[in-house]
């Protein structure tokens, strides 16, 4: 009996399903960043708003990378429903705390897929995921650095205005 399943698709149904969950997670992340961009803009933090618009676009690109990979491997990529996006935040700092939480959750989720690929010997998908693991270093660094600004500048007086200005300049250029 021919192995028709393998002929049709490189990835297993389980990995396909995990990757589709990741597509949804990235789409959710993108929408959350968009909501953060809106909140910052409405509250006068224009640099942070711009930063979150860029983040939203990056997450969207990540979503598409996963989406196209699933299709290229012969799987069924599912366009996700994105619901329950928080629209209001209690403070400027809370926005960045939640941004970091979001990135930590994405790193965790990619690591889980990686672990599953390892145990099922899906080295092709592991190699594909390597790019995302490296990307998460940058994403977490940027989110953590933004929170650090709250500590080193402080929120008193014109602190938040200063923080906002510096958020726009956060970069990760490590060659490591």
């Amino acid at each position: 009996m021919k192995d028709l399943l393998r002929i049709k698709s490189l990835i297993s149904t389980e990995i396909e399903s995990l990757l589709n969950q990741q597509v949804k997670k990235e789409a959710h992340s993108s929408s959350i960043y968009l909501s953060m961009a809106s909140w910052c803009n409405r509250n006068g933090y224009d640099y942070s708003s711009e930063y979150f618009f860029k983040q939203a676009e990056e997450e969207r690109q990540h979503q598409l990378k996963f989406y196209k990979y699933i299709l290229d491997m012969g799987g069924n990529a599912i366009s996700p429903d994105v619901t329950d996006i928080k629209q209001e935040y209690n403070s400027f700092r809370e926005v960045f705390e939640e941004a970091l939480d979001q990135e930590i959750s994405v790193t965790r989720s990619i690591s889980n897929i990686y672990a599953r690929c390892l145990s099922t010997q899906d080295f092709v998908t592991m190699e594909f995921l390597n790019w995302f693991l490296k990307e998460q270093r940058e994403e977490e660094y940027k989110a953590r650095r933004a929170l650090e600004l709250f500590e080193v500048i402080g929120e008193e007086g014109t602190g938040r205005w200063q923080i906002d200005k510096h958020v726009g300049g956060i970069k990760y250029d490590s060659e490591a």
Partner: protein
Amino acid sequence: MTVTATLPQVSEVFATKHGCVQQDDAQRRWLVEFAGRTASFDHRNLMKLRKAVYAIDIEQRLLEGAHGPDVEIIFICASEHCYVLSLLQVIAIKDLLEGAFVMLELNQIIHNRLYRAYA
């Protein structure tokens, strides 16, 4: 002298007392014998059938009791087949498909071990 043996093209993947799934290597399709008829599915539609069947919350249907619908309609987009099944038949087809997919995975493992390089 060359001897050409004609091998059967259709192999049984999995069977229960309610039905069976066969694989047609030549057509690259699966034949699902269930509810008194045989339906042929390509890879995409077999996946859709599996998704539709697995998505039915059997426990919830049982809890609904007399208030819920008596039948479940399984319609697969872009396929000429449609099933109208009772809850017991849903349980039976789920059982059949689960068994079939375990066998197809086992077949993949066998192919990996026997025919594909395992250096």
